[in-house]
């Protein structure tokens, strides 16, 4: 969980009316930047993180001491080249890496817990928009992100149609599916069923619903991979043993792997934030915001879109990404689309998938040349 040091924070003074009806003001948005903003201020890329990401996109995350979540894609000479572009990323509100969230204190100095207002993707995007003013950027060169990051990309360009030249939603959807809501609900139930959750007041009770949060992470982690990828990586290989032990220890490597993923996640993520952010994803339905017509979400933008999906992603499958392409084509928008061959599942966008990284790089660099 976050320590205050190493976290840059913008305090948003302006009141923000949330979709739930409540208004927040004087709240922190934690952010990080990479590369430098040029004098014309036309080289900024706003990156949006996914469910468990944070503002530390690349390099060493100073809080977790691990590599940034998008280190394969962002950095000097990489797809999103920080020698060329100024990359900004902020922690979503509702999160737990310095932005306003359920682990913060209310005006009575009491930790919010589940008294924190329910946040939507729209709220996240509106909060992050304040960073443009902060840096004096009139128009971004690009906005991008995968998964929930992609949802924010779509919401951002819908809310602020002339604020980005290019738009790159990756492995995402315009409307969270029943299957995805179901997986999120499974995660939330795991957390709230942990007796240490204490109705969300675990911090003041000096407990932590680590077991529940770990189970939530384990279940979610499976959805980020593909059957083929799992089979190739783990198969039925046994974990440091010659034979089955006829017990409930982790006999199989896949069990051990999932347990490890669960345990390291608990060290860096807040259980209540997990509830809030998954809820925001479930509530996301951009078409519904426009009376069922997704095209209308984009009718005021002249931005150039590039949409990317992955063959083995069954969480945000190609068809859901293509639905966005179809909505854009039906209004004559400038949209490109590619489905990348990969057996790494939904996680492909975070991993070393050369076809993906070169497509991203070529699109950005060629678009920037045309600037």
């Amino acid at each position, binding site marked *: 969980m976050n320590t205050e040091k190493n976290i840059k924070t913008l305090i948003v003074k302006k009141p923000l009316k949330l979709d739930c009806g409540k208004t927040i003001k004087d709240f922190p948005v934690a952010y990080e930047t990479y590369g430098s903003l040029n004098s014309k201020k036309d080289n900024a890329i706003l990156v949006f993180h996914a469910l468990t990401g944070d503002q530390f996109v690349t390099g060493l995350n100073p809080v977790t001491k691990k590599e940034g979540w998008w280190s394969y894609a962002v950095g000097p000479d990489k797809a999103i080249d920080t020698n060329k572009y100024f990359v900004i990323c902020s922690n979503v509100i509702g999160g737990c890496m310095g932005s306003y969230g359920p682990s913060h204190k209310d005006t009575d100095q009491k930790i919010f817990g589940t008294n924190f207002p329910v946040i939507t993707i729209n709220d996240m995007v509106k909060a992050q928009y304040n960073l443009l003013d902060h840096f004096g950027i009139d128009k971004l060169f690009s906005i991008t992100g995968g998964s929930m990051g992609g949802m924010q990309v779509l919401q951002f360009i819908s809310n602020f149609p002339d604020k980005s030249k290019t738009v790159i939603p990756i492995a995402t959807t315009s409307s969270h599916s029943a299957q995805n809501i179901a997986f999120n609900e499974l995660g939330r139930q795991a957390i709230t069923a942990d007796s240490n959750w204490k109705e969300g007041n675990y911090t003041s009770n000096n407990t932590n619903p680590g077991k529940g949060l770990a189970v939530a992470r384990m279940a979610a982690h499976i959805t980020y991979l593909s059957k083929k990828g799992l089979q190739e990586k783990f198969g039925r290989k046994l974990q440091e043993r010659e034979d089955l032990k006829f017990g409930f220890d982790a006999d199989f490597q896949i069990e051990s792997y999932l347990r490890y993923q669960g345990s390291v996640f608990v060290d860096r993520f807040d259980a209540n934030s997990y509830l809030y952010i998954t809820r925001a994803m479930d509530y996301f339905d951009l078409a519904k915001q426009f009376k069922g017509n997704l095209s209308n979400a984009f009718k005021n933008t002249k931005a150039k879109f*590039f949409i990317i999906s992955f063959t083995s992603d069954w969480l945000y499958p190609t068809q859901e990404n293509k639905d966005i*392409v179809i909505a854009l084509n039906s209004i*004559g928008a*400038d949209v*490109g689309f*590619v489905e990348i061959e990969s057996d790494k599942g939904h996680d492909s966008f975070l991993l070393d998938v050369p076809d993906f990284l*070169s497509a991203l790089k*070529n*699109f950005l660099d060629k678009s920037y040349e045309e600037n």
Partner: protein
Amino acid sequence: MKNEFNVIADLIEKDKKVLDVGCADGILMKFLKDNKNINIRGLEISKEKVQECIAKGLTVIEGNAEKDLKQFPDKSFDYVVLSQTLQAFLNPELVLDELLRVGKKAIVTIPNFGYWKVRFHLLFKGTMPITKTLPDEWYNTPNLHMCTIKDFFHFVKSKDIKIFKSLALNNLNTSIINESNLGVKNLFADLGIFLIEK
């Protein structure tokens, strides 16, 4: 750039909006974008070719013309180009209808099965013809519905499709096809280029 593309490019005025269906590596798209200020989009089924287009800075959508043309609104492009691909579709008639729905005009090129070399090959060798424009063996060709210039000419007429221009290509020679010279062009051209509208 191959002569076919030069002829196609000459049929398109500056500053228009064009969709290249089956745009392959985007050579024609790039030429139109750079030289005629065309607002150009491509539709391409091959992932590798899509990547090549992206590397050229072209807007391309990975997709299948038989399924994915329906997402484009009526008459949303000034021209829709289909180069030497009509014969490879399961249902060429449906694709042609879609091209003419999406485009105000369509430019369709077809490898001519009536070309004399094709006829000679079949007549004297007795095997499926292989020529420069039809390089594949019968068992691995993508072509399902080969036709001749004459076939296509009659086909579009029967569908009440207006032919603005029909051109016969033989290497670097381009000539106009009309009702009276159709038989000759059908024999001596290896490629037909048609500018049509419905």
